[in-house]
């Protein structure tokens, strides 16, 4: 049973790494590009305004959608790889 345990631990660690990566992107597009770094991005024009505005009203939502599907797809692979799926 020791193998099962280390297998399970490895699966959980892989999941945590994946979540951390996704959360960094999540925070970067919304709190970063759309709010805190907006002045830095003000030089990049997008349709009459700047990139930060685009991230605030469109870019972050689009990124969120991609992130969730990416996570679901990766986790399905992890479930299979570690034999822990249903």
């Amino acid at each position, binding site marked *: *049973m*020791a193998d*099962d*345990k280390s297998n*399970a631990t490895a*699966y*959980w660690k892989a*999941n945590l790494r994946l*979540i951390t990566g*996704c*959360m960094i992107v*999540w925070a970067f597009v*919304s*709190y970063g590009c*759309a*709010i*805190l770094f*907006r*002045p830095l991005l*003000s030089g990049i024009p*997008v*349709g*009459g*305004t*700047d990139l*930060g*505005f*685009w991230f*605030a*009203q*469109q870019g*972050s*939502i*689009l990124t*969120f*959608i991609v*992130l*969730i*599907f990416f*996570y*679901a797809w990766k*986790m*399905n692979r992890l*479930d299979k790889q570690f*034999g*822990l*799926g*249903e």
Partner: protein
Amino acid sequence: MSQFAINLLFVGGSFAIYIGIAIWAKAGSTKDFYVAGGGVHPVTNGMAIGADWMSAASFISMAGLIAAGGYANSTFLMGWTGGYVLLAMLLAPYLRKFGKFTVPEFIGDRFYSKQARLVAVICLIVASVTYVIGQMAGAGVAFSRFLEVDATTGLIIAAVVVFFYAVLGGMKGITYTQVAQYIVLIVAYTIPAVFISLELTNNPLPPLGLFSDHAESGVPLLTKLNEVVTALGFNEYTADVDNKLNMVLFTLTLMIGTAGLPHVIIRFFTVPKVADARWSAGWALVFIGLLYLTAPAVASMARLNLATTVYPEMAGQVENMEEAATNPILYENRPEWIRTWEETGLISFEDLNDDGRIQFYNDSADFTDRGWEGNELSVNNDILVLANPEIANLPGWVIGLIAAGGLAAALSTAAGLLLAISSAISHDLIKGSINPNISEKGELLAARISMSVAIVVATYLGANPPGFAAQVVALAFGIAAASLFPALMMGIFSKRVNNVGAIAGMLSGLVFTLAYIFVYKGWFFIPGTNNLPDTPDNWVMGISPLSIGAVGALINFAVAFAISRVTQEPPQEIQELVESVRYPKGAGMAVDH
């Protein structure tokens, strides 16, 4: 056919569909009633989550808020969608694996404590009841505008319809009616938006139209909008915000509040597998995104339309914007849709300088040199979406569709909230504490009775909304963010957090958040009992009471970890429970002992 008949046809037709679905999907067991039998397809569930989530606030109010606030109110767009990333990765799959019916049940089992479950029930009921009041009131407004009945009669009709499908069908009836309601609301929202986008930018897709050129003047739409609103004394629409800390915290509060709202979480219990819970979060955000990507376009276009309706000279290629701004239309020449909405009191005009023209501008700017003596047109933000088809001169059936859509948004969210409330009462309070030996039949009856009581209470409060109705929605997010979300997350990601830690954490997060809100908004929202005026210079570090939930959540985490560290670690079987929710496969596999 008169507009009234068209509206009646659309609203009546959609209601007939909902009731038909309710009869088809009658709940026979508690499993049907609480989690729709557990067999809902992830795409179906995603659509149901979309309708469950998008309330009267999303459908009616959000575009108006963004139109008024511009960039600063992007917080709602990011906050109300970003929470789904948290749900998909931090909560939904594990709570689905846990495989029970309610949110307080997980908290009670994981923290092996009836008190913890009770605290969760209280947080759930306060957050959900405050939220449901707004939905019922929204349904009342939609009824009174489109069906020419008074708001109370409208509310009672809405309550009877919800009663039918929610009490009979439980989660099963609610799920399938929500799918129908999603389709009604998204069609109703996007059709007028497409026409307005075509008219203003020649681009049929509103999200692209937002960043395209304004057809009449040839400059980008947002540049045009900035020029128009600044000439009327407002801030630029795309202007940056000075108080970034508050903007970050407000967005964070909305995100973790979204993830912690029980009526959304329980929707993830209805799918067959853990993997399906992840997929449904993705689909939910796709369906929500359709509206949330359209809303900012509707917002800026409606704002521009409104200004150029009053100042027609501003619309085209303008040499001198200041000069165009001195020439508003005569009140007697106002368009038909302003006349219609004046009857509801949501638009009103007062000729302060007696020149017969409509001066519509930012009051705090000084335009006495133009002979203006104050803003003369007040427009309620909530009408922007509802009036859109009339502003764009769309045919009568689109107005009927908007009426059905607004009601679908309000009723679907109300039903989801009512289910969360009734399951907390029948499953967590009655079966969990008062009478654990209750039969399944008895519990099902209790669930139906508590749902009926909840509908009566919500209808009463919707008809007589307390004066603080607008503020309580913020309260719902603050409570969910500061109490439920951290407890759920720690329950999954930490084996060390124990019963005492979790209860202390939830209570301190909750008390801190409530206290900060009450200091500025009045204790229990009683007017005049606030200790400090609710203005930015009085806020601690510029943090508004609406943004404080995120700080409350941090306090919750910190207190729970600190207290758990100095008290006994959770028993072995609880640590095994935590292990088991982490892996999709059967619980026995995960642990070695």
